[in-house]
């Protein structure tokens, strides 16, 4: 196996979660690479939708932002920002949404707003953008994040985008139409969420990772699936296709 970087591994594993014919709401950076990689491999009919209103994009180069002109050239449709959120997202037409953030907790709640206190923040992060709207309305939320103790926290400082709240029962009371968190893909493994409790559970170990290392990097007692699997290593085709998508290493560097 060719050596892959932690970022490359995350992108490749996350891309495998996307199925042909699905609609995916794509964010900038790593999620954008994962979606484009899936489209070049198992999901040529993947419908890439961007918050900026570009629908069915077919970018000839990697966009730096979700409003890049190359997402418009050759797209299926372009609509206004309000229409994208109303017709596509709230309309229930998006299967998968990628979210990122500074912190995620064991029920998949995500913080992309502040570290510290809202009124007097230690670090001010960009905020929701469409993240909370996406979390509330897509069928599956996939989070791609490095597996680090400062990112995996027992309780997020601020719930920008609701995951399963304090557990699936409290989430159900919100009455959201979305399906909630589905997978968390890190450089060490893939976590999914318990059907009943909504708690994050390790389901697959990436090449080279161990349960011990994952536990060391997760500050709570992470649940391990009784059916724990080994993630198949990246194939040469996955690696070469991904590297061709980001030749200048803008995102993978």
């Amino acid at each position, binding site marked *: 196996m060719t050596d892959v970087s932690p970022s490359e591994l995350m992108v490749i594993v996350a891309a495998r979660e996307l199925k042909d014919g699905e609609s995916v709401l794509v964010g*900038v950076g790593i999620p954008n690479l994962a979606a484009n990689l899936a489209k070049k491999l198992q999901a040529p009919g993947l419908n890439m939708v961007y918050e900026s209103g570009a629908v069915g994009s077919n970018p000839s180069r990697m966009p730096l*932002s979700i409003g890049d002109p190359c997402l418009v050239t050759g797209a299926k449709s372009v609509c206004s920002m309000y229409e994208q959120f109303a017709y596509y997202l709230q309309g229930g037409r998006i299967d998968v949404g990628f979210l990122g953030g500074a912190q995620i907790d064991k029920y998949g709640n995500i913080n992309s707003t502040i570290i510290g206190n809202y009124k007097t*923040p230690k670090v001010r992060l960009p*905020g929701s953008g469409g993240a909370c709207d996406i979390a509330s*309305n897509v069928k599956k939320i996939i989070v791609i994040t490095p597996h680090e103790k400062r990112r995996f926290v027992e309780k997020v400082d601020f719930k920008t985008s609701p995951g399963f709240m304090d557990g699936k029962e409290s989430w159900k009371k919100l009455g959201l139409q979305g399906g909630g968190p589905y997978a968390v893909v890190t450089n060490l493994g893939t976590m999914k969420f318990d059907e009943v409790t909504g708690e994050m559970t390790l389901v697959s170990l990436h090449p080279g990772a161990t349960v011990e290392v994952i536990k060391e990097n997760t500050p709570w007692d992470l649940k391990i699936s009784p059916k724990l699997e080994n993630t198949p290593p990246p194939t040469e085709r996955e690696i070469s296709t991904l590297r061709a998508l980001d030749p200048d290493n803008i995102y993978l560097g």
Partner: protein
Amino acid sequence: MDSTKLMTMKDAVSKFVKDGDAVYLAGFTHMIPFAAGHEIIRQKRKDLTLCRATPDIIYDQMIAAGCAKRMMFSYAGNPGVGSLRCFRRALEKGVPKPIEIEEYTHFGLSGRLFAGATKMPFLPMRTNLGSDLPPENPMMKTIKNPYTGEEVSIVPPLNPDVAVVHVQRADAKGNCHIWGITGEQKDAAFAAKKVIISCEEIVDESVIRSDPNRTLIPDFVSHAVVCEPWCAHPSYTQGYYDRDNEFYMQWDDITKEHETTMKYLDEWVYGVEDRAAYMKKLSSEKVLKLLPKAAYSAPVNYGSV
């Protein structure tokens, strides 16, 4: 022909943007009217409420210049790069002065404009519930759905005092053709009390009437028309010039300190008279690099008997 709307950016800002106004410089990544932001800085407007879904570099510059009292937004990052350092300096350290914030999600803020444009009393939406954002923003409320009894999140209408909307082409009356990412251009124009249109080119009314589906903003919504080529640089105008991604990345370095930011503003904003002068300063290699390859749409037939 009503040509009284045609004016320079200097005159448009002087006439329509007042201290204390709520302003909306429209454009989601695309067609952000930087030339208008720079003119507002040069005319030293202050105590503005800056509204934009993505404040982007333009509001970072206006905050550093001391124009802002408050910012209404939904994503305060440098898209694809990282932080908006000037905004963070104002919020975290009060430099050059403290800033109040009013924060929404993208759906929430674009919904506020839609509600403002259509004079809805409020707009219900399937989001915000369960998030920690509503407790921090009293403008986000919930009501009981009168049909089902469920709790629903609502946002109020937004009617900015003035919106600036950059477009590809407009006629002298302010009928505007827009294509590419349309963002909140139409909603901002219909929601605002005064609307400054800036355009890459002024065309004859017959050009507009040849393709009415592309007219997102009609003349009776526009108050001023400014012919301002390259108004949107370092953002872009589809079909005219590409996004200057290199500058978006450089902005991170330029804004490391308040002083370094001011040095940039001194040279590129205060140090130039208008957008034409700014463009003269920009290297021709940079300009050539940003010119896009053409990709024309197939013509459509609007004929009738």
